[in-house]
């Protein structure tokens, strides 16, 4: 009888790992998958387009139940694992179901960070993480007017844009003075803000949320400076926290997340972890590209073809707001010893900035004209010496080739 692989987490990271495993060793394991959500596996990244009404839930499904059957994977959707017994190599689900494992894959992902201000438990205060959240938002959009999004990062802006597209009046509340400060420098953020304001979004920057008000349902948000705005829906997009309680309880070594080595193996040789729940060389992950890489490496090791190592790489960010072209990758702030190339055409809404160090590109922020983003990304990864094309670099690959 085959060894058993149990996957905790029916998300993108876990299933991608399983797919990678199948590519190498289709029938090495009996596979059981536990998922908290009552669906098959879907592309979480595409929730924004769904919210914006540009895609449907069916569009974003990755693996249907048929797929699981076809690959004789036992799927327990909507039945999260609550306990891991490493000595007996058994996991127990909420329903009480117990499954024994030879290999365990943790892909528990992360959960949104809900700022613990007074009123954060009120109905109408939600995060933006899963299909359930999207449905709540769509419902709110049908019956309510004022939406407040707390957190002007990538996710927050996508949520805000979606809600606006659904007809709500949306205000984005952000603690710092520029949007997406994890991905954009100030000039780019300013252009982005202008573009989004032009579409009807409102912004409150440097705004410290003090309290979410309302008798039985949210009616407003008040700030430290005492000012208040009306809100029928509050979406918290102030970052995520890795889901590590289960691992911790099982005594696996965790720091900010579950610590893994270059093979995605935890401190327990039988247990692997991938995705937003892992910490690799003190880094945690939120974007999809590195997680795909992890899946490839982890899948290979599960398949026994243990020759791959996971190497962190800069990964580009894009904002999935139709009509806003934005590309950011690597160290776009720079610092000691770094140099800047900047191109501005405000009237055409174009801003490009490359950060150079020792003759190589180490970061790029592109706004308005992003077509060369992948090229710069490529140059960053190759650590290519750009000295010779420095003067033409910002004008694109074609001119620089000459």
């Amino acid at each position: 009888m085959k060894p058993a692989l149990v996957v905790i987490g029916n998300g993108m990271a876990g299933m991608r790992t399983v797919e990678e495993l199948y590519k190498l060793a289709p029938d090495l394991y009996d596979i059981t998958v536990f998922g908290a959500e009552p669906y098959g596996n879907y592309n979480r990244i595409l929730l924004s387009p769904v919210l914006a009404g540009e895609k449907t839930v069916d569009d974003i499904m990755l693996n249907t139940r048929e797929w699981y059957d076809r690959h004789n994977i036992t799927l327990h959707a909507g039945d999260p694992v609550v306990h891991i017994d490493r000595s007996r190599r058994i996991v127990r689900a909420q329903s009480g179901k117990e499954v024994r494992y030879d290999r365990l894959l943790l892909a528990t992902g992360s959960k949104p960070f809900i700022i613990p201000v007074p009123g954060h438990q009120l109905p109408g205060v939600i995060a933006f993480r899963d299909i359930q959240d999207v449905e709540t938002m769509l419902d709110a959009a049908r019956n309510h007017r004022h939406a407040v999004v707390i957190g002007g990062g990538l996710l927050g802006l996508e949520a805000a844009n979606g809600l606006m597209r659904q007809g709500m009046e949306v205000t984005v509340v952000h603690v710092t003075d520029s949007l997406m400060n994890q991905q954009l420098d100030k000039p780019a953020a300013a252009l982005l803000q202008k573009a989004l304001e032009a579409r009807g979004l409102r912004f409150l920057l440097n705004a410290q949320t003090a309290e979410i008000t309302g008798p039985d349902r949210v009616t407003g948000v008040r700030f430290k400076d005492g000012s208040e705005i009306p809100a029928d829906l509050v979406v918290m997009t102030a970052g995520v926290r890795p889901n590590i309680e289960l691992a911790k309880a099982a005594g696996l070594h965790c720091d900010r997340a579950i610590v893994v080595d270059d093979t995605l193996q935890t401190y327990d040789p039988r247990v692997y972890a991938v995705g937003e729940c892992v910490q690799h060389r003190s880094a945690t992950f939120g974007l999809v590209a590195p997680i795909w890489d992890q899946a490839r490496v982890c899948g290979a090791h599960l398949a026994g073809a243990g020759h791959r190592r996971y190497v962190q790489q800069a990964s580009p960010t894009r904002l999935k707001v139709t009509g806003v072209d934005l590309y950011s990758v690597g160290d776009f702030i720079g610092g000691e010893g770094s140099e800047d190339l900047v191109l501005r055409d405000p009237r055409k809404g174009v801003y490009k900035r490359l950060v150079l160090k020792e003759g190589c590109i180490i970061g790029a922020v592109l706004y308005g004209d992003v077509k060369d983003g992948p090229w710069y990304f490529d140059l960053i990864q190759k650590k290519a010496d750009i000295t010779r094309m420095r003067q033409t670099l910002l004008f694109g690959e074609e001119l620089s080739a000459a």
Partner: protein
Amino acid sequence: MIVNLSSVPLSVQTTCAYCGVGCGVKATPKADGGFEIAGDTAHPANAGRLCVKGSALGDTISLEGRLLYPMVRPQRGSDELRRVSWDDALGQVADKWQAIIDEHGPDAVALYVSGQLLTEDYYVANKLMKGYVGSANIDTNSRLCMSSAVAGYKRAFGEDVVPSSYEDLELADMIVLVGSNAAWCHPILFQRIAKAKEKRPDMKLVVIDPRRTATCELADLHLPVKPGTDVWLFNGLLSYLNQIGAVDPAFIAEHTNGFDAALAQADAECGDIAKVAKTCRVSVEALTEFYEAFAANAKVITGYSMGVNQSSAGTDKANAIINCHLIGGRIGKEGMGPFSITGQPNAMGGREVGGLANMLAAHMDLENAEHRNAVRTFWDSPRMADKGGLKAVDLFRAIEEGKVKAVWVMATNPVVSLPDADQVRRALAKCELVVSSDIIERTDTNAFADVLLPALGWGEKDGTVTNSERRISRQRAFLPAPGEARADWLIISQFAQRLGYTGFEFSSAYDVFDEHARLSAWRNDEADLPRKFNLAGLAGQGTQAYDAMAPVQWPLLAGEREGAKRIFADGLFSHPDRKARFIPTAPRLPANLPEEDFPLTLNTGRVRDQWHTMTRTGRSAKLADHIPESFIDMHPQDALIYGVREGELARLTSKWGAMVARVQHGGGIARGSVFVPIHWNNQTSSDARVGALVNPVVDPVSGEPEFKHTPVRIEQFRVNWHAFVLSRTELDLESVAHWTRIQGKAFARYEMAGRQNIDDFTAWARELLGVTDPDADWLEYADKSERMYRAVHVVNDRIEQCVFLSPRLDLPARGWLAGLFAEEQLSDLDRAGLLIGRPMKKGVDAGPTVCSCFGVGRNTICSAIRDKDLKTVPEVTACVKAGGNCGSCVPELKKILIETRAEISAEMPA
């Protein structure tokens, strides 16, 4: 005198405004109000051909920058001018002028005029000074141009007479061009020579010039003589011709004096070819070849220009040349003669009216009492000048010394063109009254004028000019007088009348010309006061005949319709004894020789497409293309020695002044010499006035300055940045260390360099371009650590200005950007290329982006599906990467796949 455009015939025959060749020009009105400029096929000088400058005359007649109204400067040194009426302006000048004469005498006032005046203007100015003010203090920029040639002719022939005609250049078997870059400075004449040489390849062309100029390209022999050694060369020739017996004893005996003395002088130092070759720094072989050819050919023309004239031995050079023609009687017959080729459109006309400080009028002499009496009677003048006046250089010295207190400058720009030009500034700054008649408001000289009087320019004025072959041609008006501008002859006449003089009641250019013609014939016969210069045949011809007058050579005796092609064919010269004179010419070196501190020799001259101080040619974009900036041309080895680099800026310094320009090679400059063009000035460049460096030494006889030989030193001019600006609007260049302004079509180009460190590029650029609107359409590129910056200012989708800055000379080519100024609207593709300064190639259109992770476009995906017959999304991803990262586009990929597959099967034959 207003010319009504509607009365202008379909096309007008006139004469070119530039060099002394005097080409006929046909101006035909165009629908757009401009004029079609073409060569006049009926004119003997050019038979329809025009050089590039002449062809571009149409570009230079706009009223932009013109002086249109009389102006006074309330405050010396300030830029502010106040418009006044003619009455007021002339009144102010007359009062001051008269007051100065009353207090200090007639020699305290002076006119400084120009070879660009018409003969009529010249005549009236000369009459006023010499016959009424009673001073010969009228000199002209022709002093800087051909006064040595005049002096040479007068010493040899007794009269300022060019014995030959242009057609002699075509009839000659040998042409010697001395100090003449005819290819650039007299292009049409050079083309005639080239054509003739094409027909008769055995016709020999010898060029004698320290530089290997464009003219040398056609030469059979080029003698790159050491600057200033021409007299040795021609003394050597005289001696050689005598040694081999290439002499005409009969001619010498019957028609000349002073042969022995001249020969003795020549033999003394130049009897030995080897020695002469050494002195002139040419090879013995080359020199011998030249001497032998000269001896072998009877029909020899020696044409000479500034290289001979502009020297402290200019007159001797001219006579050394003439001596070599006299010894063999090579004069007055077909295809031979010493031929001075002048540089200005009417230098000759000025000579005819006597418009130089050492002449009287109509080829009569100041020193000659009989001549003075004749002219006094003819003019019925109250006060005749009886001694020579101050020549150009002395005149401005006298002004600085306070001896001359009023100067009236007409149609010339001495602050740029005179030697030691900074002295001229000092002089004008001290002068009590500075008047300027000009067509341009802002010139380096006008900046010092107390009163500015608007004159008529080319195309507006009406009168006559004389070219280098004694041919009088009409300049005719085809444009109305702009603003309140007036003809110079009229301005002077009205001024004279204000001073209370009678004899200036001219009502037209014809009146003036007729008086001039009658004076030329006045007592002009063998028995009385014979002069070759005689326009009797044109006297009393009447206005219509004058207006219809065809180009004609003088002398033109009563009843003659055709003038004389050649003079002195009869061997009778103008000296009292009717003989020509050999002049002993003791060779001497230039006044100032290179020394330790000033080791190089500065030579100056013209470039092909510019004229004088660029007030006219500087307005043509077409003419700016050939040589946009001033330069210092020198030998690469000298550049190495003195630490300057081609393309970079260098400072050139003499004892008298300094300038800055870009170093270049390739002008055929010998080691030890540098060449700088004369044209650029403070209106076109920050610091390129070469006149400021030129030594103010003059020829003792002619008073012509030594422009071709000034000791200088050169050193690097360090700058921290180079930049260029193209702008539709004028810039304020106060803060820029070095700049040159170049006229473009609908914009001006500025080449600049600076020393200050620029921290905030954007602020610097916006201030330079005068852009204050923070929301202006402003594109910029910055590489701060490389100190590179580029910005483009766009207004209504049209390029308005751009600036490109770099610490090096690696700025992009200007051509493509310049072309965009002709566009009414920038295309997106052009806009994309603005900041790199070159057109973006229109790449393959990838179509709208589908996968933004890898930047894959729809078209790319479709063609992949077709070409590689892809059937599933993973196949597409595997093939073009699309969908391989975040997967956002997978649904779109599915759609595209289905559509494209459908199209494919639809295309399949059923």
